[in-house]
């Protein structure tokens, strides 16, 4: 039978990034790790996926992956999403890396919307695909002013936007991409993971690399780094929660749950976690 890899005719010798590109991206990654939360510009290359479809995360992964690595790619929490399958196929077929859906087996996890519920450790690199790396984009459009605000750590207008959100809606409504202070210095967009995943970025054992292909920026949260969501002292930071909701498949109520539109049925967002839960209880 003809495999898809034969059809698209990619072999490990056909690398998507040449050595110079890899070096350039690795340099940007090193700068990003050295200055946690700082957005480092990089020369985003053309990838065989459209910009905005994970091209930034893909370049970061391709710059750090090795044939001995084991790669997990998810879209939302799902290993079998079309985009996740395509990106995983691109990565493994062009580098010779192996693939897995189990986070604990993976050395590199590429994701857009989620951090896997478990399994990441100090051997793991989490690569997040970022659509909008600039946390202040919503309050300021002028690039020079944005640069000044970051340089002077002038984040008062970010606080004002949280204040306005609370005043208008009675609670902080921003769910994905919640702004966080990294290492007490830069504010980053944790885009677009849900608030549920934010606490796991704090003092994590793993390295998180953020790649924004369209915006040509890379930033990082190194292991054991303080990550604090911007929160008023008297308005506690809360993660998403639906009272009494349980996964209809594995009965979990301690994972990030999603519901089908207009349906009371909840399911785990992390499909592999859900699968392993079901195997355990069987």
């Amino acid at each position: 039978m003809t495999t898809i890899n034969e059809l698209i005719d990619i072999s490990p010798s056909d690398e998507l990034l040449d050595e110079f590109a890899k070096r350039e991206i690795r340099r940007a990654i090193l700068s990003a790790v050295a200055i946690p939360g700082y957005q480092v510009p990089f020369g985003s290359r053309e990838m065989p996926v459209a910009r905005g479809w994970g091209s930034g995360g893909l370049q970061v992964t391709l710059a750090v992956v090795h044939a001995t690595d084991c790669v997990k790619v998810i879209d939302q929490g799902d290993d079998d999403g079309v985009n996740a399958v395509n990106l995983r196929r691109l990565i493994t077929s062009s580098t010779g890396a192996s693939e897995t859906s189990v986070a604990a087996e993976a050395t590199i996890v590429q994701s857009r919307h989620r951090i896997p519920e478990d399994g990441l450790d100090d051997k793991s690199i989490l690569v997040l695909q970022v659509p909008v790396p600039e946390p202040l984009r919503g309050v300021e459009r002028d690039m020079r002013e944005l640069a000044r605000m970051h340089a002077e750590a002038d984040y008062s207008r970010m606080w004002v936007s949280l204040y306005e959100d609370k005043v208008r809606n009675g609670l902080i409504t921003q769910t994905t991409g919640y702004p966080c202070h990294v290492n007490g210095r830069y504010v980053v967009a944790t885009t677009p993971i849900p608030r549920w995943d934010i606490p796991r970025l704090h003092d994590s054992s793993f390295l998180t690399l953020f790649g924004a292909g369209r915006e040509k920026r890379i930033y990082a949260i190194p292991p054991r780094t303080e990550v604090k969501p911007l929160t008023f002292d008297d308005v506690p930071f809360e993660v998403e929660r639906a009272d009494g909701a349980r996964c209809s498949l594995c009965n979990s109520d301690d994972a990030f749950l999603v519901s089908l539109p207009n349906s009371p049925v909840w399911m785990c967002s992390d499909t592999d976690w859900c699968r392993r839960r079901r195997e355990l209880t069987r």
Partner: protein
Amino acid sequence: MTNMVEYGRYPVARLAVPEWMLRVEKLGKVYGAHDDEVIASTGPESGTSKSSLNGSIVAAWDVSFEVAAGEALGLVGESGSGKTTVLRCLAGDLSPSVGNARLRTSRGEVAMFDLDSAERRLLRIDTLAVVYQDPAEGLKMNVSAGGNIAEPLTAAGWRSFGKIRARASDLLTRTEVPINRMDDLVRGFSGGMKQRVQIAKALANSPSVVLFDEPTTGLDASVAAGVLDLIRSLLEEHRIAAIVVSHDFSVIEMLTSRCLVMQHGRVVESALTDQLLEDPHHPYTQRLVAAARA
């Protein structure tokens, strides 16, 4: 208390200010290259602030004054006379070409023009506030009145939502903005109310110096009178050192005790405001006063 010094041909009253809060020395702002000859080619005697030698514009030159806590100093003159240039140099919106400005703060005396932009910005948060003629310059129009006041508060490190709300509501009450408009976007406010919100924002961190740039120019007469009343009572209440820039003598008369008259970038007369209105010496001041009294 008053000793007279010669200022050109005209006597200038200089009050011995016991405790200055802000002291400006020989402030100058020139657009283009300048030397002594270029400077000498401009000013009231030449009738222009643009040099005939090289086209440089001497927007302000040799401006010196002191302001004490609880005192308001006026800067008066027609448009183009350099008064707003002086104010913007002090506000940090423009960088002056020459001169010094010293400010007494809770952290000690600082030479404002020696600070870098980040330090200047810190000064603007809690020590020196500006009320602009155009509320759009001092406020974010697509943010609520309370949110606009929250900005300097959060910049100063306030992190309690409840305390920020309470402070904003207190300030809006004091500036007579209806409290039920606190959560409405400033864009929808009338001109007078926008200006009141801007004043509330300026007072957020209890600054020791407030600069007013034509604070009532865009407002109709009755609204302007209300805003002037408000400014005057706030200045008295908080012992703020204020600089009021205006082309309108009625504003200067109502708010200030002393004032400088500027023409073509130079100070041509400085006196107690009452004295200046009663007995203007410089011909330009006489014309201004006559126009205001007409």
